[in-house]
């Protein structure tokens, strides 16, 4: 009945830890500090890992032997200068709240993933991408500098000039270098209040690459959706969404509301026991979805709706039920994409797993260390955790290895170390940077342990 008195420490508690895609690790220990003095007395022994929104598909923010330090109370704007185009925020700030703050000042972050509840610290740690990586690269491109805490080093400023190696290992380092405290982000003027979306048909998988490349040269956003439930000759049929900035008359940005940003969590996603996706329901839903989108043709949406589409489709994730789903997101070199799609078709045919989502986008960005970046096509597949799903993931690992692509580490909670070692040429360099910075390997999660980091 009384508050804890020692304000420097934060109480620990154990919770059932589950990754967003449904990988259940059992009970893990969590803390939720709300004062800076917490870091002054953080011990330099044991294992810890920072946690943001807890919405990573992989178990990047917890581990059975680690204490998760939840950074959600550090959610403030520390400095803002419209003239310099810089906003400094604490790591626990949510993307949607930052969008709301910036949008009323005519600014935004060009690179942001599709859900407003994600934390800035999480976006940095996973070096996430947005809707237009072929133009804007990944989240790294909009980080001017950041502040990291490690008990061995204290509070450290990192940027491309100060501790550049640790800076690059922190952006896309999955929390293995320490706790990101705050970041100075480069903001851009909002080009226009709306985005005109044009939808064109894609006949089959062979058309995906040429259509994406053709549209990518002159569109602000481009992505594709495909029906992969039919492994016949129309495998990969779907549509391309081409977005161009347009000014809307009297457009207002409401942005995602706070209540919207609390709707989805790893627990709430798994709250409904039954998965409604099977071979037949998925076929039917894909057919209905494609028909609806095609009939919609061109339309104009406000920027916030385009940037945060998941706020309108949380039910999609909940419908996977308690056991969750897999996402296989891979970056495939352009020259190998046709072969990749052929291999995907064969693997799906063999596994007999219902594909609930297949989507492609053009990619760019930096490919060093463990960063999911580089030129090519990023192609994602979603399917429920049903019989055959693990085999399908394994087959896709092999296929990707043959073709020289790289899987997205943050999107796959079972990705084996061997696949990452083979797909990321700088795996050992990353590992040596992290071990030199943190020889006792204090910052560990299930993800870093699984990947041998």
């Amino acid at each position, binding site marked *: 009945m009384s508050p804890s*008195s*020692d304000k420097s420490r934060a*109480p620990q508690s154990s919770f059932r830890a589950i990754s967003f895609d449904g990988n259940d690790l059992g009970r893990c220990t969590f803390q939720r500090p709300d004062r800076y003095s917490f870091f002054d007395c953080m011990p330099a022994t044991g294992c810890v890992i920072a946690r943001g929104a807890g919405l990573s598909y992989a178990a990047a923010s917890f581990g059975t032997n680690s204490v998760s330090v939840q950074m959600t109370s550090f959610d403030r704007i520390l400095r803002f200068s419209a003239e310099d185009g810089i906003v400094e925020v604490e790591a626990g700030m949510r993307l949607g709240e930052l969008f709301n703050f910036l949008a009323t000042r005519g600014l935004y972050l060009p690179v942001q993933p599709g859900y407003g509840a994600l934390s800035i610290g999480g976006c940095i740690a996973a070096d996430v991408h947005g809707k237009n990586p072929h133009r804007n690269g990944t989240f790294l491109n909009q980080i001017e500098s950041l502040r990291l805490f490690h008990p061995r080093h204290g509070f450290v400023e990192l940027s491309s000039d100060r501790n550049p190696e640790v800076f690059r290992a922190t952006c896309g380092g999955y929390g293995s270098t320490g706790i990101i405290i705050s970041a100075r982000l480069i903001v851009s003027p909002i080009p226009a209040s709306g985005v005109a979306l044009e939808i064109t048909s894609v006949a089959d998988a062979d058309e995906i690459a040429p259509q994406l490349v053709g549209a990518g040269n002159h569109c602000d956003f481009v992505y594709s959706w495909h029906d992969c439930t039919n492994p016949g000759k129309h495998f990969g049929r779907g549509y391309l969404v081409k977005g161009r900035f347009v000014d809307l008359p009297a457009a207002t940005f409401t942005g995602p509301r706070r209540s919207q940003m609390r709707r989805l969590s790893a627990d709430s996603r798994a709250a409904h026991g039954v998965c409604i996706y099977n071979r037949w329901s998925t076929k039917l839903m894909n057919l209905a979805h494609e028909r609806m989108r095609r009939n919609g043709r061109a339309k104009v949406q406000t920027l916030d709706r385009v940037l945060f589409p998941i706020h309108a489709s949380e039910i999609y994730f909940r419908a996977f039920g308690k056991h969750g789903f897999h996402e296989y997101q891979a970056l495939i070199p352009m020259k190998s994409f046709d072969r990749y799609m052929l291999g995907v078709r064969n693997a799906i045919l063999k596994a007999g797993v219902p594909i609930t989502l297949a989507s492609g986008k053009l990619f760019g960005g930096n490919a060093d260390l463990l960063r999911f970046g580089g030129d090519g096509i990023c192609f994602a597949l979603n399917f429920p955790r049903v019989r055959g799903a693990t085999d399908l993931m394994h087959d896709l690992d092999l296929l990707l290895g043959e073709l020289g692509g790289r899987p997205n580490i943050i999107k796959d909670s079972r990705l084996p170390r061997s696949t990452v070692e083979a797909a990321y040429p700088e795996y050992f360099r990353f590992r040596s940077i992290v071990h030199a910075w943190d020889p006792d390997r204090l910052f560990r999660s299930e993800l870093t342990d699984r990947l041998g980091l």
Partner: protein
Amino acid sequence: MNALVFGASAGIGRSLCRVLAARGDSLTLISRDMRDLEAEGAHCRAVYGVEVDCLAMDAADPRKVSEVLTAYLAASDRCFDTLLFPVGGALDNDLVRSSVDTIERTFNTNLLSVMTAVSVLLPRMATGRGGAIVGFGSIASIRGRNSNVAYAAAKRALESFFESLRHDLSVSAINVQFYRLGYIATQQSFGRRLLIPVPSPETVAATVVANLGRHFGSRSLPRFWLLAAIALRLLPWRLFRQLRF
């Protein structure tokens, strides 16, 4: 409007800052660590465009509280419409046989610093346009138990002080309120499996600010704790002595 929040860096205090800033109040924030205050102050300035002063002081040292506040008032012409004191806490070893350090620290933090701050700040209350002084107690003080001993005693004394304050200011336009807080979703309840609803600090802060003009003396928050408080008070000693909580 000017508001002062003593205990502004976390929990209910931090949420109160946001609610007050959202309605355009200038803020004076008090807490122990300037790093927390500067972060909160920067956020309120950037998001709500309000003026914010930050004062670092340790509530465990009432003499220092008096000193820092006096110096601040000497250097500033700010008058206050609202004083809020969401400050305090219990120590882990707060038992019947506690050390003098534990007892002293608990009383200083929960009671004496608040009394001192009120005494120093009262002359700067904007009496002409009304105002409010709000204290925060705990349902732990409803009936003494064998844990949180000094904490419960200090909070019960604080409630008595606010009754006196209300009595003293009844001839003025200043409204004095006192909340007995139940479990709130702060560090206090983190990880506890409770069968009762636990409101967020944001909800509590919105309620407190919405109630600033109302005259009710003291009340439980959330309101259902009133029933628990009555039940606890009426519980026969024979049963109460067997409770361990």
